[in-house]
């Protein structure tokens, strides 16, 4: 059974105070807190296993390699990939998208080809494509959304043509919480011969992912948004696609044989893992996934959905508050603006009550442009949040209205 108090016990930081108040952490879409098991796994690597991987004949190097490669297996099974070599370690979602845009894009895109993105993408799933579009002459097309923050699927289908070579789509919007119908979109995109990259940065901690069922060509996520360390994440890619792609970065580990005349490249996944990886981070990420599995994603999702509904209900008690992002399918994000109060001021007043939220454009400036607002305040949930956290949020928001709107 899911017991939120037991879960909270495992996160040391949740016992801390901020400005004399207990920490109420509602900035989980930016990054999640880490359970003790993740902290322990990282420090155990440095305490007991520290050696470089894939290089030594000595025992310690072998142990480090085993632990590192075990983390790859954990990720593989967590997202349902068929082959372990389809999992490439990266610094995070951003680097994974850059890898695909750069490596696949340079080899495959030509003048006039189209890259289809949605209006609610994070900058990480916009700018890498803009760079490659500039270099190759490809063109970026944008799937529009409506006032609720739901993608217009009729427009989406109209934008799909034989010129569409790549669909880059976020599974869950970090700014709005919208869950996009990626399964359906992947199927449609494949019908015109396009590949699909799913940005799973915000879905990986709320949804069970099966990349084979989804049939996506690429899937990316960051460890730090999944209760794991920063600086580590993963790219999943279909094996035949990854095999056909040129290396992204070059250096040690990614080669078979180097001469000054020519080098030959290592096989997957090492072809895309040049240099010494973030070994401790990968091991920590493995531990984070094991933690999530031990709690159970279905329990986590149910708990978060109930809290989000409670928060949305509470929001009605503040007439000046308008929720931004009201899609039917949404998770764990309450993005809002308040008439007469700038989000920055909301953030500062909440902070003085120990409530941590994010204010700003959330790296999704086109979303702000669409709603004609400079910024929103965003509370985002994770498995350790409680009804008391939501109550603390709204008590603090009532203070905001007292101070600003009296």
């Amino acid at each position: 059974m899911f017991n939120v108090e037991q879960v909270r016990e495992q996160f040391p930081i949740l016992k801390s105070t901020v400005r004399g108040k207990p920490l109420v952490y509602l900035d989980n879409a930016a990054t999640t807190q880490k359970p003790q098991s993740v902290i322990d796994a990282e420090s155990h690597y440095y305490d007991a296993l520290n050696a470089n991987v894939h290089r030594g004949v000595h025992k310690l190097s072998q142990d480090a390699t085993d632990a590192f490669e075990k983390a790859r297996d954990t990720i593989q099974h967590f997202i349902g990939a068929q082959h372990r070599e389809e999992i490439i370690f990266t610094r995070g979602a951003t680097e994974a998208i850059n890898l695909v845009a750069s490596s696949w894009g340079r080899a495959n895109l030509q003048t006039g080809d189209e890259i289809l993105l949605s209006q609610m993408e994070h900058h990480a799933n916009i700018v890498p494509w803009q760079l490659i579009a500039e270099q190759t002459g490809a063109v970026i097309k944008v799937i529009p959304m409506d006032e609720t923050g739901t993608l217009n699927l009729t427009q989406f289908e109209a934008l799909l043509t034989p010129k569409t070579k790549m669909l880059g789509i976020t599974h869950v919007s970090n700014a709005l919480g919208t869950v996009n119908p990626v399964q359906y979109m992947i199927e449609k995109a494949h019908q015109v011969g396009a590949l699909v990259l799913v940005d799973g940065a915000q879905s990986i901690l709320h949804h069970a992912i099966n990349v084979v069922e989804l049939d996506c060509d690429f899937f990316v996520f960051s460890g730090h948004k999944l209760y794991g360390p920063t600086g580590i994440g993963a790219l999943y890619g279909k094996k035949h696609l990854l095999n056909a792609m040129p290396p992204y970065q070059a250096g040690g580990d990614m080669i078979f044989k180097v001469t000054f005349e020519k080098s030959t490249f290592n096989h997957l996944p090492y072809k895309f893992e040049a240099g010494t990886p973030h070994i401790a981070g990968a091991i920590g990420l493995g531990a984070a996934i094991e933690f999530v599995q031990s709690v159970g994603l279905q329990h986590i999702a149910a708990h978060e959905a109930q809290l989000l509904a409670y928060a949305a209900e509470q929001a009605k008690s503040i007439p000046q508050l308008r929720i931004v992002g009201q899609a039917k399918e949404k998770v764990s994000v309450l993005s809002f603006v308040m008439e007469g109060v700038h989000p920055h001021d909301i953030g500062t007043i909440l902070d003085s009550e120990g409530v941590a939220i994010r204010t700003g454009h959330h790296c999704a400036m086109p979303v702000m442009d669409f709603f004609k607002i400079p910024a929103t305040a965003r509370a985002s949930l994770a498995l350790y949040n409680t009804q008391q956290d939501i109550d603390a949020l709204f008590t603090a928001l009532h203070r905001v209205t007292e101070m600003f709107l009296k």
Partner: protein
Amino acid sequence: MSDLRELYQEVIFDHNRHPRNFGKLVKANRHAEGFNPLCGDSLDLYLIVDNDRITDIKFEGQGCAISTASASLMTEVLKGKTLTEAEQLFEGFHQMVTTGQQPSFDIGKLSVLAGVSEFPARVKCASLSWHTLHAALNNSNQPVTTE
């Protein structure tokens, strides 16, 4: 909590709700744009400088209470000042919001923003209009940012 009251003084609310010298100055001979890319705040500052003296000044834009009030107070304080006096006020203001120390000379109403120094994340909000002033007086055509 006392820090919060220090930050959000009545004067700040007043200038946020009713910003002074708000709007465009059609006859401006100095102009600059300022951005705070982190929060999306933007500001246009217009000045008429005559014989090294600021004879008129206005601003428009959108921002939080701190940046709006700071811009509004700045325009009030600067109107009629020489460029040398403006520069001195800039230095004094900057010192106050970063260190919390009131400068040795009188900076007038600007002193209500001293509380900002307790909120490092908000120093940029308070400084945006002043950085924009610098750009306008140096006739730089590049929009300034707080980053």
